[in-house]
């Protein structure tokens, strides 16, 4: 087997997996704290792709061209505005349903996903949109004909996903906010009695989860260069799968699940058949769940009495 082709396929899998992981972190964060699957997460990611294009054109119209400045400002603004979207969505669609059945917020989330898609389609049009190539450049290892390559933006995605995961893990485990989050997760009523404003904690979790989606949105949009109002759907499902595979609720699990899923898809489509790569990926998910029902790094759920 050609070693360069194998190396390239591994790198393809790693970058795709990091993208899945980056989005899966948002899913898992929300699930870990309130036990709800936020199906609108993929569409929050889609919103941030549009924000990226809007912010970039604003920055360019101001005449700023320094790459680090452009990138940082775009990231900051996109994460802030997307965080605000996350806050508003939680407020409108999920908070009124708190305390009702487990299914109600789930259905509300699916509804929210449709609302966001239609809102963007109507306000921005159904057509493909593009962003200019901001980070151009590629690292190639090997000769003229045979080489393994990774683009700068792909490297950035891999690094960002690991930093994102590490930062969130730190926040959850080491900070006062994280302690409040964990208390809210363990027993919402008791946490409230002890003086934690659980509503505010849950809002904060949504804001953090959404800004992680924005981090992914900005970088992935710059990577593929184009997007439309429908991009959140497929990638949302894949990221959700990654989160479940790694153990939903676990941050390192989401990252691991993303990379396992990306690698599985990349290697299977590269060496067997791309027709059946999704079949293979989901078969893998089934297998993992049979032997480890709570995912690769998930903790088994303890029945509360």
């Amino acid at each position, binding site marked *: 087997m050609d070693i360069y082709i194998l190396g390239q396929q591994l790198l393809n899998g790693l970058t795709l997996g990091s993208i899945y992981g980056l989005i899966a972190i948002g899913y898992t964060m929300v699930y870990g704290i309130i036990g709800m699957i936020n199906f609108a997460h993929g569409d929050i990611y889609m919103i941030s792709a549009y924000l990226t294009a809007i912010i970039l054109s604003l920055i360019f119209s101001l005449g700023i061209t320094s790459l680090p400045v452009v990138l940082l400002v775009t990231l900051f603004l996109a994460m802030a505005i997307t965080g605000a979207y996350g806050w508003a969505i939680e407020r409108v669609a999920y908070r009124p349903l708190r305390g009702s059945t487990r299914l109600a917020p789930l259905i509300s989330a699916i509804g929210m996903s449709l609302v966001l898609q239609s809102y963007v389609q109507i306000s921005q049009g159904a057509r493909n949109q593009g962003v200019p190539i901001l980070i151009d450049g590629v690292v190639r290892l090997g000769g003229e004909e045979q080489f393994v390559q990774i683009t700068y933006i792909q490297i950035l995605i891999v690094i960002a996903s690991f930093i994102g995961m590490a930062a969130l893990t730190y926040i959850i485990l080491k900070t006062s906010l994280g302690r409040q989050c964990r208390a809210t997760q363990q027993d919402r009523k008791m946490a409230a009695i002890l003086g934690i404003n659980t509503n505010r904690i849950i809002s904060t979790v949504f804001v953090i989860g959404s800004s992680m989606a924005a981090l992914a949105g900005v970088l992935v949009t710059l990577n593929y260069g184009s997007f439309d109002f429908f991009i959140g759907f497929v990638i949302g499902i894949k990221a959700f799968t990654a989160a479940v595979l790694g153990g939903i609720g676990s941050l390192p699990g989401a990252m691991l699940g993303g990379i396992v899923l990306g690698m599985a*898809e990349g290697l299977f489509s590269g060496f067997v058949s791309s027709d059946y790569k999704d079949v293979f990926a989901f078969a893998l998910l089934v297998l993992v769940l049979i032997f480890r029902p709570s995912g690769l790094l998930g903790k088994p759920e303890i029945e509360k009495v």
Partner: protein
Amino acid sequence: MLKRSFWKSLLLAVMIGGLAIAGTANAADMIKIGVAGPHTGGYAAFGEQFWRGAEQAAKDINTAGGINGKMIEVVKADDACEPKQAVSVANRLMDVDSVQAVAGHYCSSSTIPASEIYADADVLVMTPGSTNPKITERQMKGVFRMCGRDDQQGAVAANFIINNLKAKRVAVIHDKDSYGQGLADAMIDRMKALGVTEVLYEGLTRGEKDFNSLVTKVKSVKADALFFGGLHTEAGPLVRQLREQGITADFISGDAINSADFVTAAGGPKYVDGVYMTFGQDPLTLKTGRDVIETFRASGYEPEGYTLYAYATIQALTSAMDATNSTNLDKMADWLHGNSVNTVLGEKSWDSKGDLKVSDFVMYQWDAKGKFRQL
């Protein structure tokens, strides 16, 4: 509480009843034509092309006095390019809107199941853009198309790849849909007849954006040409990732990448430079449509892709209604089989299957400015 909901439902019932009455009152002096295409989902850009074309055609016909004194009303239907939804909107067009003819759908995988519903209701359907051969191969009298067929299109592409590009190692990728895979298979059939077998045959998943592992596979088989059967939403990222990985193989695709959106989907004109595609004789260069094209441009809309095909479809349907003074499927179908129509795309006539007698697929090439020209 109970009382209030009773009054609410009564009001609702009255409103629905009122709508139904309004519907029947209108039916006498209006001809309704359904325009079906994807308006939501990833392929909504094509639905918009259909709707713009059909709406303008109806407007122009009504300004000119309508059909036998009756006004044309176009009814929008959204199939999201999903076979299941196509069937349900087809039923809606028949049962709720009671349209008298249908222009649609876009995706072949939607047109095929939906046309069965129209046939049951004895309503004639003409698709502006579905090119899968199966559509007219089912011996259904009331099914027509305003475009060519994939076997014709695939043959033109295969001839070009083998005879003009002199490609020896041809990779073929499709999107696992009736249109994309059908076109890819048609291309391969012709290519095999010319003595060349494909070196790679793979399907990708619609809606995804990352085809890097597939691209690396194309590289590993050392292809010198890549034929893609699918839509621009996947063709764009595919060609970009191909170029990013340093593969210089020629990229050839079909009529579904004929949209400025192909350039945006690829992330910039530099990636589409040199891409070949098959499409009908460029309608924007035809003399017959000059006035119509001017009207579109004056309103700030470039009638790209299938816009004028939808316009021509409405023209053909209404011409048949005008000549036969009816909306009866048999009468209209017989008339269309025996007569030709002067459309915005030129004079069109149909064979006994409902296919165009003359298909005019030609090769186009995209340039580094993101424009294409006929070769």
